Structures are given as C-alpha cells and as structure tokens.
C-alpha cells in the first residue's frame, strides 16, 4: 500500500509537471508566422558560398538578392511553400534546397540515421538481455563451479567499484 501511495505521488508530480509545461507551451503561440524567414532558411544561396540563403552576408552577392526577391514574389503571389520550393528547384536544381526533400531517394537521407540508430539500439538491448538471461541460467544450473580465486577477484571488483567511477 505504501509503495502504491509513493507511486501515485510520483505519477501526480509527473502529471503536474507535464500540465505546467503544456500551459507554458500554449502561451503566446498565436503570433503571426513568418513564412519568408522560414523559407529562406530552407534554401541555399547559389553563388557558391555554401551558405543558407537567409544568412548569406556577401555585400554585392550576385545571387542572394535575386533569390530573396523571387521568394518574396512567390509569397506575395499566394504560392504555397511547396510551390515556391518547386519553382526554385526548377530554376536552380535540387541543390538549391538546404536539405533533402521528403520524397523519392531523398527520403533515404532522413530515414537511414534513425533506422540505423533504432537497429543498433534494438540489437544492443537484445544482446544485453541474452547475456543477462544466459548468466542467470548458467548461475542457476551450476552455481558452485566458479573458481574460488575468480569468485574472490570478482567480488573484490564489485566491492571496490560499487560506488561507480571510471
């Protein structure tokens, strides 16, 4: 019962924290969006400086001013974000986008890191579980066969590293 009460206390604390965060998140979230700023950070300057269009700082850059004007025109003409980006791709090539798109082969760029991480994580968890189960089975099957010197050495390690540390 005591354990249940403690568990309940921690659950309520967690709920309160989440609620407080959600309230704070909602404050002021209704400001007008800035599509221009968002879009110019999704595009590259094409002058060869390898900078984000919105951050290209070359005085007299031959390309960035034109690109920014095209972006403004696109927004003023009521084009959607996708339409504007497609227009840029059509004119400058896919290299004008600051990051791969979410379509076709580009999607692989986004999926691969998470897929690799998930696979590695899963593999590691399964491996550690296998080791821990194997160890339990081995210990249960034959608990007395460990070399006493080895047992003593391991116990010493455990005692002396019990507080952790490098």
């Amino acid at each position, binding site marked *: 019962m005591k354990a249940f009460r403690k568990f309940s206390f921690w659950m309520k604390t967690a709920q309160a*924290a989440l609620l*407080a*965060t959600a309230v*704070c*998140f909602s*404050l*002021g*979230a*209704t*400001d*007008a*969006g*800035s599509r221009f700023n*968002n879009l110019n*950070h999704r595009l*590259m300057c094409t002058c060869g*400086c*390898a*900078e*984000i269009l919105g*951050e290209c*700082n070359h*005085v*007299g850059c031959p390309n960035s001013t034109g690109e920014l004007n095209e972006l403004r025109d696109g927004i003023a003409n009521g084009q959607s974000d996708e339409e504007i980006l497609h227009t840029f791709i059509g004119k400058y*090539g*896919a*290299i*004008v*986008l*600051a*990051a*791969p798109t979410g379509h076709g*082969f*580009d999607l692989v*760029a*986004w999926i*691969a*890191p*998470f897929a*690799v*991480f998930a696979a*590695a*994580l899963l593999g*590691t968890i399964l491996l*550690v*579980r296998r*080791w*821990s189960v*194997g*160890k339990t089975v081995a210990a249960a099957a034959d608990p007395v066969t460990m070399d006493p010197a080895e047992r003593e*050495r391991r116990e*010493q*390690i*455990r005692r*002396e*590293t019990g*507080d*952790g*540390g*490098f």
Partner: protein
Amino acid sequence: MAAFGSFALLIALALAAYNLLAGALALRLIATGQPAAISPERLADTARRAGIAGFLAVIAAAFALVWSVFANDFSITYIMEHSNRALPAAYKFAALWSGQEGSLLLWASLLGIYGFVLRLTHKTDVKLYAYAGTILAGIQVFFLSILCFAAPPFSLYQGAIPDDGNGLNPLLQYPEMVIHPPMLYLGYVGFSVPFCFALGALIMRYPGEKWIKVTRVWTMVTWLFLTAGIFLGMHWAYAVLGWGGYWGWDPVENASFMPWLTGTAFLHSVMMQEKKGMMKSWNVWLIFSTFLLTLLGTLLTRAGLVSSVHAFAQSSIGTWFVVFMGLVLAVCIFTYILQRSHLQSEHHIESLVSRESSFLFNNLVLLTACFVILWGTLFPVLSEYVVGNKVTVGAPFYNRVAIPIGIFLLLLTGVGPLLPWRATSFKSIRRNFVLPVITFWATAIVCLAVGVRPWKDGAFDTGNFYALVAFAVSVAVFTAILSEFLRGAGVISRQTGKNLFLATWLLTRRNTRRYGGYIIHIGVVIVVIGLAGAAFNRNIESEMAVHDKMSIGPYTLECVGFTQDSNLNYNSEYALLDVYQGGKKQFQMSPEKRVYLITGQPQTMVAIHSVPSWDLYVVYEGTNPDTGQPIIKAFLNPLVGWIWAGLVILVLGTLVALVPSISPSTASLRVPVRSAPTEPALKGGHQ
C-alpha cells in the same frame, strides 16, 4: 635549400622504409623463432634507430621549407603560391600548412615527432613498442611517398622567378590560423599512435590489458589536441568569416568531428576493457575506425570528393588516400579475423540499467552521431551516383537529425555516472535521480517563464524547442555531476574533518581520472548551453552614415566615423561605432574590412564585444555599390562565450585526468596480467 629539403625527404623516406621492413622482419623472426644470421633483437633496434633518424630528416625538411618562406625563396613553387614579402612573420610560419604540400609535410613532421617520443620511451614495453613503431613507420612511408612523388613541397618554379609571391589566403591571416591547424593535425596524426598500439597488440596477441594503459595517455593527449583544434577552428570561423556563426556543417568541419566522436567513444569504452575485460573487439574497431576516419577526413579535404568552402587545399592526391585506406582496412580486417579469439570478453553486461550498459549506450549514440555526419557528408555523392541528382545536405538536415542525438548523448552524460556497476534497483534510481529530474523540470519551467519558448513568430520552432530541452538537460546533468562530487567530498569531509572545498580537491586528487572525467563533462554541459543560445541569435543590417544609429537588444550603435589605414600587406577601412547601453556610452567598436594588396582579396575583421550573456558581433560589410554608403551588420549572439569557457573547462578536466592519482584507488582492481609468452622477449623487454 630546395635541394636540401628534397634530399632530407628522400632520406626520411628511406629510413622509414628501413624501419618498416627491418622492424617487420625482426618481429617476424622473433615470433617464429627462426634462426637468422643477425640477431632479431639487434635488427629491431636498428629499425628503431632508423625511425629516430627519420624523425630528424623529416624535421630538417620542414625546417628547410620554413626557412625558405622566411628567406622569400620564390624559386620554390609552394613558397611563391603561399607567401609574399610583406607577409607578417607569424603568418610566414603558418604558410607551412596553408597549402597541400606544406600541410602534408606538417603531417609527416608531427608523425615523426610522435614516433620519436614513442621510440625514445620504448623501454616501457620493448616488444609492444617495437610493433607500434614498425606500424607507425608504415604510415610514415605512405606520407613521405606522397611528399616525394605526388605533392613535393620543394618543386621548383618553372620560368622566370617572380619578385614576389602570391601571398597567403587572407582567410588564413588570423592569429588562430597560427595554432588551429597544428592543433588539429596533432589530433589527427596523434590517433595514429593508439592505432599502432592496438594493431600491434592484436598482432602479437598481447596478454592482458596493459597496452590500453600504455596508450591511454597517448589517446587522451591526442583527443585533447583534436578537441582544442576543433574549437579553435570554430572560433576562427566565428571571428573571420563574418556570418555570425561558428559551425556550418561543412564537409571539412564534419571530417574533423567524426574521428573526435569515435575517439571519444573509445576513451569511454576502453574503461570497460580495463576494468572488466569487456568490449575488446569493439575497442579495437573503435580505434581502427578513428584512424581510418582521420584518413577519410584528409581525403575529403584534399580530393574534392564533396563540395566544401575549404577549397584551398584541394588536389588530386585522393587516389593515394583511397588506396592507403583500402590497404589499412584490409590489414585491420585480416588481423582481426586471424586474432579474434584473443578478443573474447571475460565478462558480459548483466543488466540493461547499469554503469556498463550506460557505457555501451554512450558508445552507440556517439557512433550514431558519427554515422549521421558521415551519411550527411557523403549523401550528395550517393544521390548523384544513384539518381544522378546532386542535393545539398546542409544545416537544416543536421539540426533536425544530429541535435536530438546530441541531447540524448548529453542526457547519458548525466545518467551514466549515477548508475552503479552490474545492476541497479528502483531504490537506487530514485535516490540518485530525484534531484536531477526536479532540476530538469524546474529549469524547463523557469526557461518558459522567462521567454525561452519553443516557438518563434507564432509557429513551433524546432531550434527553440531543442534549445529549451538542451538548457533543461544541461542543468540536470550539471546537478547530477555536482551531486557526485558533493557525495564523495562529503564522505571525505566527515572522515578527515576538512572543509568541503578541500575535501573536493582531495577527492579529485585521489581519483583524477574519474573526477577529471566529470570536469570534462561539466565542460561539455557549458559548451552545450553556449550552443543552445544560437537558437536566439538576432541580427540587423543597415547602411550607416556618420551619426546614424541602429539598435539591437540592449545596445544602440552610433556611427562616429570611418577611417582608413594601410600597410605593406593590406589596405583597411574601419567603422568607428560608439555603443550605448541604457543611454550611456559603454565602449567603442571598430569592425574592419581589409583588402590584401598582393591578391586583391577582401577580408572582414569582425569586432566582438563578449559578455557572459551574449556577444555583440559587428561586421563592416563594405560599401553599397549603388549608394556608396557603408553597410554595418550587427548580431546579438546569446551565450557564445560559454562555448569558449566550456573549452577551457574541458582542457582543464583532461589535464586533471592525465595527472596520476595520489593514491591509485583502483589499482587493486586491475585484472592480473596473465603470464607472458615463454618465448624470449626482446632484450630488456618488460612484459
């Protein structure tokens, strides 16, 4: 001097080749016990001495190049292309690494220095050092071959010798450029040494884990150099490129970051091998990978494989690196397959929630981060190859993919040290984690209350969101580390009666490795806080005539004049800006724009006023060609100073970790080294 330098390089190559061949033969004879006309021990010693002589030869070649720069010997093509008479002395020295050939010579020189130290300290373990020295000689043969045949630094200028050289790239004429490349190279090259020890130990089936202890100092020093090199590069980018940022996910930046990640993973997981005999294969492959990544980084920098703003060092020597990398990989795989039985773990991880598994997950996340960066760097090439369409993988990709991984890694930095070895209990978790969890939520709520909110212009903003999470996690991790210090110091304080400060000092001295590591983690936390500040950068750009004003954050900048200056190297224009805060004049800033006479290339010299809460960063961008008015761009970059402060703490922590503990508290934990092989060791060897 050109002939002397070329000759020195050829001698260095011959000596390195002798070191490799004689060393390999001697070690083979020792391993097989075959009778030979010459004593293998003496042969191995001649190989070692050849390595030392080779160091002198390669240093002589580097000296010849530096001498030629200072002597304005424009008959040497490299000097003509990378220096000029008016170049200041410090930058003349920097000319050594400003171009392809010179930077390869720097690489070979540093490898020579590392090899020299290694060979001088060979009595630590003669046989292991003989293996490591021989492998190192193999690497040196590769670099010296390139220098002698593919990228000779002393090649003579064809035609009439010009009166003056082309000068140094203006981007490189900045104080950091005198120390950033050598630091980075010390890091890059330094990882050759642990690689050689790891490969050598594997080839000779080195008994026990002593080789790890031998290489620990090498690895940590190398890691320190690489870390400092990367941060100095960031500061250079921040102060010179004039875009207000310090990291652009450029392929060359990525190339330096990847070995840092795997090297960091190695420094963590190697503790598992030392303490518990675990992760042996993993560690061997980590150090192999780190070395291969340093080569890959060099390949990316030089071969033009991917587009990069670091175009000043590109050339066609990529094939050499590809072949060498293939050869190294083949040797690593072959040796691993042959000797893998030697790498059986003595123990396995017993629980998913334990110190051991935290090391494993830490490694997993570091390697995932490395993969993400490698993937992002090479994806444009892959995309072009697969679908014939080159794409850009820029900051938005890395910000979305790498930042969450980085925050998760930071979280592990705090969680790991709080977990006990072997297994943990709910009670233990509750005891150790309550405070960090409370500080996490408290920080998040305080941040939200003071305006650090996950939206911008009314829309959800991932940058702001990540910054908020990073702040909260950073404070939680800092709390966790601090509680570890206080817990240990409290015990010592009770035992010795010393105050908490002295007890913390004593605690650190008793286990410098552990608490030095914690100090490094604090440095990382400080750096992350600084990085998270970037989400709230602001900037304003305006044409400014005299007495015009612009405001950003709490500052008002008033232009009080423009002036010009010139010297033999460049002409410059300055803007003089009085900076007001709260209506009072606080200081003056003078951003500058230079035009280098010899190249005609412009260069910004940013004015930075740094306080803990932010940097006021002002760029004089030049004049508007249409109006003739000067253009000033001002940035207010929050918390940037924390990044550099974090580096100082990081360096301090590493130095602490390198100092031997006053009482080796874990000495009795070492797994006893199994008896050495019965074959006679090299004369004077220590097993």
